């Protein structure tokens, strides 16, 4: 067992636990976007930063990837943490204003406006879908490409992946979401939405062996537009 001080509270948790898990266990909420139980920690969204250490040595680390250390002092909601978190939320809102998940986090943190130039992107590159696909669905159909501002998500060369089973797992976990339904074009990269059990709107023969749990059927919604 490792002993540490979490928000002034002396606690002990098992070795190898991350700060995020420890905080969750003791009831301190930490917002996250790229973390999901059952998937490996990734540390991309930086929302879960907490402050560790003291004085000039204090620093912010992502709690989802940081394992607890003996005697460490953790503050999950210090002023520095909250200030940083608010800017991150502003950045998220500036990129993906339509995401319900992000809106909820923003409202919990009392962020009511963002000051950057408004964009409308579909993806925050949190990597949940990539890990879902690889670690839970054992497919590895999608991944990241490019770096910096050119980094994007998809299959190699944007062609339908041979290993994709159109399970829709990527869309299920997406907080943003880029893994959009591609309507009834199964040759496109990622799909799954229209493969409802009984989609009345599409020709059945292409989709007969698929399953989908999206409700309402995204295909119909797109068609309505």
């Amino acid at each position, binding site marked *: 067992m490792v002993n540490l001080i979490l928000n002034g509270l002396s606690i002990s948790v098992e070795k190898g636990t991350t700060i995020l898990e420890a905080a969750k266990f003791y009831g301190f909420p930490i917002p996250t976007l790229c973390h999901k139980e059952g998937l490996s920690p990734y*540390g*991309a*969204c*930086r929302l879960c*930063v907490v402050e560790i250490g003291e004085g000039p040595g204090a*620093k*912010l*680390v*992502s709690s989802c*990837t*940081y*394992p607890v250390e003996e005697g460490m002092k953790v503050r999950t909601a210090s002023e*520095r943490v909250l*200030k*940083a978190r608010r*800017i*991150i939320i502003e*950045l*998220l809102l*500036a*990129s993906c204003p339509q995401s319900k998940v992000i809106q909820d986090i923003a409202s919990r943190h009392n962020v009511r406006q963002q*000051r*950057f*130039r408004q964009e409308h992107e579909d993806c*925050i*590159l*949190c*990597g949940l879908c990539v890990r879902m696909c690889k670690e839970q669905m054992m497919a590895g159909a999608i991944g*990241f490409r*490019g*770096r*910096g*501002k*050119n*980094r994007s998500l998809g299959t190699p060369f944007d062609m339908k992946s041979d290993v994709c089973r159109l399970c829709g797992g990527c869309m299920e976990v997406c907080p943003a979401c880029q893994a959009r339904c591609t309507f009834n074009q199964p040759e496109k990269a990622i799909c799954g939405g229209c493969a409802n059990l009984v989609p009345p709107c599409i020709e059945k023969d292409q989709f007969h062996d698929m399953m989908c749990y999206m409700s309402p059927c995204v295909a119909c919604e797109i068609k309505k537009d």
Partner: protein
Amino acid sequence: MKTFQSVAQFKTYRESFLATSDQNKPCIVICGGTGGQASGSNDLIRIIKRQILEKDLHDKLALRITGCLGFCEMDPFIIVEPGYNLYPKLQMVDVPRIIDAAVKGEVVEDLLYREPGSTVKRYSEKEIPFFQGQTRIVLGQNQHLDPIRISDYLKIGGYAALEKALQKKDRAWLVDEILAAKLRGRGGAGFLTGKKWELARNMKTRGPKYIICNADEGDPGAYMDRSMLEGNPHAVLEGMIIAALAIGATNGIIYVRTEYPLAIKHATLALRDVRQLGLLGKNILGQGIDFDIEIFHGAGAFVCGEETALIKSIEGKMGEPRQRPPFPIQKGLFGHPTCINNVETLSNVPYIINHGAAEYLKIGVENNAGTKIFSLVGKIKNTGLVEVPLGTPIRKVVYDIGGGPSGEAKIKAIQTGGPSGGCIPASMFDLPIDYDSLAKAGSIMGSGGMIVMDHNTCMVDVAKYFMSFLKDESCGKCFTCRKGTQRMHEILEDITEGRGTPGHLKLLFELAQTVKDTTMCGLGQTAANPVLSTLKYFRDEYERHITDKRCDAFACKELTGAPCQSACPVDTEPWRYVALVEKGDYEEAYRVIRSANPFPAVSSRVCDRKCESRCSLGVSGGEAIGIRAIKRFVTDRVDPSAYRPKPAKNKGKEVAVIGAGPAGLTAAHNLSILGYKVTVFEAEQVPGGMLSCSLPAYRLPRDIVEKEIQTLLNGNIKIEYGRTLGKDMTLQDLLSKKFSAVFLSIGAHESWRLDLENEDIEGIHPSIQFLKAFNIRGEQLAKGHVGIIGGGNSAVDAARVALRQKDVTSVSLFYRRTREEMPAYEEEIDAALEEGVRIETLISPVKIHARQEEIDAALREGVELETLVTPVKIYSREGRVVGMECIKNRLGDVDATGRRKPVPIAGSEFKVELDTLIVAIGEKPQSEFLSAMGLDVDQGGRIKVNSKTLETSLKGVFAGGDLVTGPNTVIDAIASGKKAAQCMDRYLQNQTLTVPAVPKRPSFFIEPAVIDEVEAQTSTRAEPTVLPPAQRLKNFREVTMVLPEDQARSECRRCLRCDLEFTRTKAAEQPAAAAIGGGKNG
């Protein structure tokens, strides 16, 4: 080569080389590094080889092709041993002479190195300041070895450290030695290398242990790691093998980017040689140790220099960092313990093992032992690699080793540590360069890039550049780094393109802090440094971009528009009248000039030409357009009646203007056009202020001034002469009578004093009194040998006027610094010297704005110049000056103004005999009486005003011209008069005084001239003819002539027309666009 099985065998082999080197045989050393090759050293090498073959010099001359020697500015250069004669920037034709001389043991005098602008020859490399200031314990070896020959490395004692390391069985002492030497990682973060090795040594593992040499050098402008691997790969390998022995590593990897082909080649060859000798591979020298090194080519991602990303890259995955812990030491490459060291760190290891930690600690300062190589680039004379002990002040590196700024502009800041580093302003150049001081100043050591920036560099633009680099090079994994750098870049783009708002600065700061705080790896954590450090030290530049929409460095294109227009204090559009003159439309050109500037003819003679100094053609290496000469051509040709502004309806208010100088008359004229009745009060009996009483007639003929002033007057303006503020009236009188507002522009008419004994005796005149006496009353005060103290324009004017007075025999100018530092116009100085003035350089307690060209003119007229002297005593006989005593100065360190301080040399006093002494060390406004009237006045006697509105501390009273700025140019005075008229108009109409700034961009399209290639390349700047000195003596004829029509027009054809980028209309672009579209469809 044979493979050795024991340390003793290798020792004998190694030592056999030490004796072989023949110190006396001449050897030609030439840099074959990437920098050298790019500068043409390959051609020189070919010629040297051919010469050696043809002349059969094998026994008499050796050739050594080395890696980078560091003095890249002088490439391609040759050093001839044993004399170490350095011949810089060679042409192919020079080579045979050098070879002949080298064989005979002679020196080719005319090709030897001299400092730029100096005539002193440096016979040996060791005498050159660039090398003198350095301590080259690592880089210095490059000169003595050919990187592809291991024998050369053995000759200079190479692999002795490895041999030493192998001799003892227990190798923990290696770690202790490095720990004791306090060697810190040269990659940037400065972690103690010994500590890292200790951790790595203590990691118990059953699998392999790795040592990685990080040669992924990605900082723009940094190339010291490349030069090490290229120039001395064996030192890196030796350090790496020692590191492997120390930590028990089994595998070594050199991670080098593919963009470094020469480094890869040299390292590969070195590896082959070392393996053959048995120093690498299985059972090293029979010691039972297996260790081998392979080279891994990185694909050039900047982020792969970060250790966790580097590991991922070697593993074949996407090069993106992961969160530490676990550290690579615990869990690195393929999950095994991995120790990663920088190239330079490893290069230091052999030195420490050879000489011992105690010796190493003597270099550098506490906690920062040893040396660091910097690549010194940017606006600096000596670009190159510089190795200095840690703790060396920045000033020494920049000015002593680097040689100071490469151009005329002063150095503003240095940027250290590459894109993730920060900028350090020139005011902090006493800062020692070490890990801790740099971090404290908001920068980082980084891998050692040092970019020097001068006043032509915009700090906002610099921050934008680095953000643009980082937004592309961030791996993109963590959100704050990816989006943060993008958003910072976006905000900086907004600011540099004129869309900045005050809120942007706060947002930028908050965002930068967050990026620094919350990102995962070193790249992101330091990515905000360029923004944070420039915000900290250059906040005023950001504010100027945002509130004034101006970029003072003329780097941000959207804020600069056409540089000539932006540079002009009165907003003239030089590009426009230049284009009109080219078309032959002189009247329209005159209207363009006159609409912005009420004194076109005066300006065309005495303007200091800010437009020309910013001309795109001039700053990009060509000759600036002669804008002032073109203006002179137009104003000489076109009658002022071509432009008649129509006064607005009378607004029923009256304004008083005090002083009829350029500022006052401009304000009066513009206010009269706006519909106000203006009364101008002038203390003298003539209008014009400095134009009439100070500027000599040979520069500005009196009839031109009078004619120009007459055109400005109209029914709304009344001038009252001989009326002095403070004597004949007070401000309160004026404001309580009929005037609703007052504009003060009484100039700066009081000379600073030397504060020496006897200063008030006969024969000594303050320059302004001397000039006034002559220009207004025709009194000739100077006689015999005239001495003038000062280096500014009024000193040079006084010198040239004195020279023209009838009883004067000779004129000497005394200045405390050297000719280069003289603030007068260069051409005027030259002219004065030409006319017979002698210049001695001495004292000037206040700064006066003036230019080198004026100095030149004075010198040409025969003024004698005595530089580096300061007067200390004045001799008098019977109440009249007979001479003075001066002390000689030498130039000391660079002071805050960027000029070297004069330091008196004790015992160097000398006496000068004089009949007249004119003190021209600067002027200040006579403003004591103004402060008595309730105005705020500063120490220099200048009135304090709101710089945006020109309001003084008294309501309704505005001030401008020299009264506010101290002695300044005519054009700045006109500009302040113009601005005052605008602000007073708003004040009188009860409007807000300031209006939001808009960038000055060209807005009027003029068809460009068609110029063929030949003409564009062959045309040169047209200089107006000047009177020969013989014809100028003892008269006041105008010295500079007007350009003839054909020359003026062809000069205009040289203009690059920077305005077109902004004015070319959509319509003009349409045909071209259509053609492209049509082609596609067809």
